[in-house]
């Protein structure tokens, strides 16, 4: 790989650029007219304006990548990252797609198919409908069998949308209609499936890497239970209070399943964890926002590994080479006000935390205007320590130092989470911030 096209923006575009710098790979950065002041454009070898506002125009991205002499494309997360057609077009254009095979992206993007594929490969699946539920009657029958509450999910949903909770027959019928209409509108497909709802279960995910030829390793688990409306806010690695052996066994099952598929590059398998048991939810076929906590505890640069695997160099490591050391926490700093309303604006001055055990991934700088068109995530503060307690106090210190003037952010929310007794004792589930399924 000689020159990589970065088809994304913000902190993840900067993250990819840094990995390229470390590998000596040249970079071409895509940007939109609204985004010409992005930080990583300062250090890219070349920048190409690809449109007015959108990072979703796959053909333009590929055209720009080709014209600028790139031999590979990194999609980051969001935008085109889980678009199997884009991945296929990239490969058809003779470029390397930094991610899984298009067929695997498509397979995991379709939730019902993914569930059954991974169930048959041996992963524990949450009790649910064995596929699409076609009618209200079918849904009612299934719910009666398993017992309420149940979750209704759009098969092509994601990002916290296309999910509703039903606590009884009446709400089930209503939810069925709402979500069918929503899913048709949002995802172009009205397919719905049902799952047993586990109250205040924990969200645990396993990071895997495949070489595309049957070798798969895992880099441990992450705790992602602190969410608001299905959007993760704070993540930890490793999950606390779950025996290493339990996580190892689950992760080994994941690796087995993905080795059978000859899965390639990074992937994350999301699970619910309740009463000592794991239940597979879905698989994300891209790098995750929260990958730095895994980098901190393994010492492995996940984006560099993505690039190495995409380049055909292989994983270069075996399961035995991967050790979990210490504990890491990530706080996602969003430019939003106390009512969770996105608050774009200009950064007048900026004090970022630093010192032992602190890393910040951010594209902010003094003078930067956060545009209103994009995701409100503006910084990820990551702390690392010998144990959960040290990672926690370092994160508290980091948030005290963090000073973004005058952008409204969710810093105070993170500070209250870190001060919460439930957080300190590690006894929390997905209901920590709010009922995860309230509309």
């Amino acid at each position, binding site marked *: 790989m000689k020159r990589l096209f970065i088809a994304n923006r913000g902190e993840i575009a900067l993250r990819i650029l840094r990995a390229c710098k470390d590998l000596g790979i040249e970079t071409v950065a895509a*940007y939109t007219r609204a985004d*010409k002041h992005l930080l990583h454009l300062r250090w890219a070898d070349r920048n*190409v304006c690809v449109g*007015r506002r959108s990072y979703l125009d796959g*053909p*333009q991205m*590929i055209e720009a990548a080709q*014209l600028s002499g790139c031999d590979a494309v990194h999609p980051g997360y969001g935008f085109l990252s889980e678009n199997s057609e884009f991945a296929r077009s990239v490969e058809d254009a003779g470029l390397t797609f930094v991610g899984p095979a298009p067929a695997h992206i498509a397979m995991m993007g379709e939730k019902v198919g993914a569930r059954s594929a991974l169930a048959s490969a041996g992963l524990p699946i949450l009790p649910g409908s064995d596929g699409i539920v076609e009618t209200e009657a079918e849904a009612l029958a299934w719910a009666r069998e398993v017992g309420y509450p149940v979750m209704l999910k759009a098969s092509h949903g994601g990002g916290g949308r296309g999910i509703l909770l039903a606590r009884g027959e009446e709400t089930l019928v209503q939810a069925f209609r709402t979500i069918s209409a929503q899913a048709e509108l949002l995802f172009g497909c009205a397919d719905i499936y049902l799952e047993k709802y586990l109250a205040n279960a924990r969200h645990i995910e396993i990071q895997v890497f495949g070489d595309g030829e049957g070798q798969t390793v895992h880099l441990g688990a992450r705790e992602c239970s602190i969410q608001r409306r299905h959007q993760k806010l704070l993540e930890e690695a490793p999950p606390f209070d779950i025996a290493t052996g339990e996580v190892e066994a689950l992760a080994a099952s994941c690796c087995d399943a993905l080795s059978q598929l000859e899965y390639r590059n990074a992937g994350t398998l999301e699970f619910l964890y309740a009463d000592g048991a794991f239940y597979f939810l879905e698989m994300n076929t891209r790098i995750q926002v929260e990958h730095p906590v895994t980098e901190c505890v393994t010492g492995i640069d996940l984006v560099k590994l993505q690039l190495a695997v995409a380049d055909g160099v292989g994983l270069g490591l075996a399961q035995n080479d991967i050790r979990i050391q210490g504990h890491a926490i990530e706080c996602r700093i969003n430019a939003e006000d106390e009512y969770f309303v996105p608050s774009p604006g200009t950064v007048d001055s900026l004090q970022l935390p630093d010192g032992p055990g602190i890393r910040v991934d951010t594209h902010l700088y003094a003078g930067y205007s956060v545009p209103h068109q994009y995701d409100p995530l503006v910084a990820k503060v990551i702390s690392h320590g010998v144990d959960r307690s040290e990672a926690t106090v370092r994160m508290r210190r980091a948030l005290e130092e963090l000073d973004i003037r005058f952008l409204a952010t969710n810093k105070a929310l993170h500070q209250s989470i870190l001060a919460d007794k439930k957080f300190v004792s590690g006894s929390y589930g997905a209901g920590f911030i709010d009922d995860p399924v309230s509309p």
Partner: protein
Amino acid sequence: MDIRKVKKLIEMMEESDISEIEVKEGDDSVRISRGGVVIPSRSTPVVDRGELKPAATPVIKGHVITAPMVGTFYRAPSPSSPSFVEIGDQIKEGDTLCIIESMKMMNHIKADQAGQVEAILVVNEDAVEFDQPLFTLI
């Protein structure tokens, strides 16, 4: 005035977007300037480091026609054909000015107003990015 200092000044100008420097030392003075061409400064986010953009962006006065997409710029419908327009041509609204090839599609770029072609800012077969100025009309 030390000739090496003048050389240094010229080098410094070339590395920057400065258009004129004047230095006086007692009775001696040096003035260095360059014409209307302004090279985008390093702090401009549209950083040019290669083939995608021409080395110098002229000072733009007229109405600007920009590229609506990323692609390859063609002044003529085929290598053997004459160019769609030349500098000084009078054109009508809707006249084709050039073609941008993008994803194997030939896109005709048309004038959004009538006028005279003042400048052609891109060389035939060059790659252009979104929003890049192509022509100016007066």
